[in-house]
């Protein structure tokens, strides 16, 4: 078995008040594979992504477990070495393309920054690379876009720019944190297809955060289902849909919108399922001894 691109093992994180937001999370992303992380709002999906990328809010503390990027334990590294390693090997496709670009700077320099300053490329090589990537995300006039300020582009364009920027440095791992939720429905589909295409072409591993099982089915090979910071089910995508093991997964599936029966999609997760989850979480917390 090869070294996984990303291996999170037994990761727990707490808030300042001692509440656990991640409960002994373990998950692996194999090289070149898309692994989905699915769960409701507040489950801790973004928290996991931030922990990997080293941008947890100051109030959140990792209390146990480790994160390894291509076999390198990030916890062992000095802050600067860790930052540079993550900068070289990982990237983020963020949720909100409005705030993820600096409003005061032109697109071009924002995209080449990492290539030039972290990867040490020459300026013209970085320019060419970015232009090529903008081409790949089907932006018709790369030169004009590179000269533009973010507010001069539409939301969909900005998300394309961010996708291009994420792939430009040829990272091994991309964390995509709900990359389509801020976009309108027609654009969502295009962006999703685009990410899938680029992923195949570049062979990048993706940790794909979403709350939408429909998206999971389309894009991922593996899934982890998260509830209240705890992984309740892990499987490859086809078996998850064919044979969901956990009652919560089944409840989520029942709640996923279907065109044939739109009203059914409004059904909330069943009370007994929630009660079961609550006792499961309580049991996990009881067994857990803060290190």
């Amino acid at each position, binding site marked *: 078995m090869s070294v996984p691109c990303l291996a999170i093992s037994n990761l727990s994180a707490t808030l300042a008040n001692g509440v656990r937001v991640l409960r002994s999370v373990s998950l692996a992303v194999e090289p070149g594979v898309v692994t989905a992380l699915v769960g409701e709002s507040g489950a801790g999906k973004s928290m996991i992504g931030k922990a990997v990328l080293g941008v947890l809010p100051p109030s959140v503390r990792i209390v146990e477990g480790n994160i390894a990027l291509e076999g390198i334990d990030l916890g062992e590294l000095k802050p*600067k070495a860790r930052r540079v390693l993550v900068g070289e090997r990982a990237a983020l496709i963020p949720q909100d393309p409005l705030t*993820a670009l600096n409003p005061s700077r032109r697109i071009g320099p924002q995209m080449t920054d990492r290539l030039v300053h972290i990867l040490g490329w020459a300026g013209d090589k970085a320019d060419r690379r970015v232009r090529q990537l903008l081409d790949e995300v089907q932006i018709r006039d790369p030169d004009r876009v590179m000269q533009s300020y973010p507010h001069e582009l539409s939301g969909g364009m900005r998300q394309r720019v961010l996708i291009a920027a994420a792939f430009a440095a040829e990272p091994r791992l991309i964390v995509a944190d709900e990359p389509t939720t801020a976009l309108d429905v027609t654009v969502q589909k295009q962006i999703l297809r685009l990410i899938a295409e680029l992923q195949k072409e570049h062979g990048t591993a993706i940790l794909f955060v979403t709350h939408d099982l429909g998206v999971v089915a389309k894009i991922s090979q593996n899934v982890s289902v998260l509830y209240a910071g705890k992984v309740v089910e892990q499987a490859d995508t086809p078996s998850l849909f064919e044979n969901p093991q956990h009652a919560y997964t089944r409840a989520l599936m029942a709640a996923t919108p279907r065109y044939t029966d739109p009203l059914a999609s409004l059904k909330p997760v069943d009370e007994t399922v929630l009660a079961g989850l609550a006792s499961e979480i309580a049991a996990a917390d009881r067994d857990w001894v803060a290190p």
Partner: protein
Amino acid sequence: MAEPRAVTRRGDARLWLAGGWLLLALLAAIFAPLIAPQDPLAQDLMFERLPPFWMQGSEPGFWLGTDSLGRDLLSRLIYGGRVAFIVAFAAASAACLVGSALGLIAGYFGGWPDRIVSRIVDVWMAFPPVLFAILLVAVFGTGLTSVIIAIAIIDWTRFCRVIRAEAMSQARMDYVENARIAGFGRIGIMLREVLPNVAPAIVALLSLEMGIAVIVEAILSFVNLSISTDDPTWGGIIAEGRLSIHQAWWILVFPLITLFLTVLSFSQFGEGLKNRFDPVMR
């Protein structure tokens, strides 16, 4: 579509009017020896309190009249601009440099740097500014340099407070987080990502501060605490004009108008530039 354009045009008119006045006043001050119709120090008791040119009893060559010692008012205003602009540029730049740097660091880094800077600002703000200035000048002695230092020492907090708040809100933005993920260090991010976003505010404040420095200098001159009393200053002329307001209102009114226009222009120019600088407003 029409709305932003209207805003831009209004902004442009403001920028041009304010900039025009400032440029005129600045050029006049720089080239004062060439432009001033009279020697600003030449007293002539035959010509005391001459009225401005459109009034009965005015003399050719004394456009705005003369003061109570017979010195040409226009020439004195032109020469007074020299002190005003030197103080404006030097004091405002110094205050801007110190205040913006500390504000940027406090706002972006937060934590203990922020606590230290904020505490100092709080203590500083407890002093009433004009009294503070008079106190400082009394300590340093009068003179151009000490006026400049006094204004900078008092007013850096204005920059610090505003820039700290701006930097703080920028520091929470996603693009700052993205730069961290890309591998950049904090100081690099502060300069590359945060500074361009607070630059418009710095520019606007800098211009505003120049206007404030002009006023403070005038106040100090007015209470005779600025530079030596021989060199004309706007505040000094106002102080003299106040004494003969009933016989010769122009000695008070013209320097007041000059002062007012200059201070107003500085603040308007700053606002206009800020909008120019801001890519979203452009």
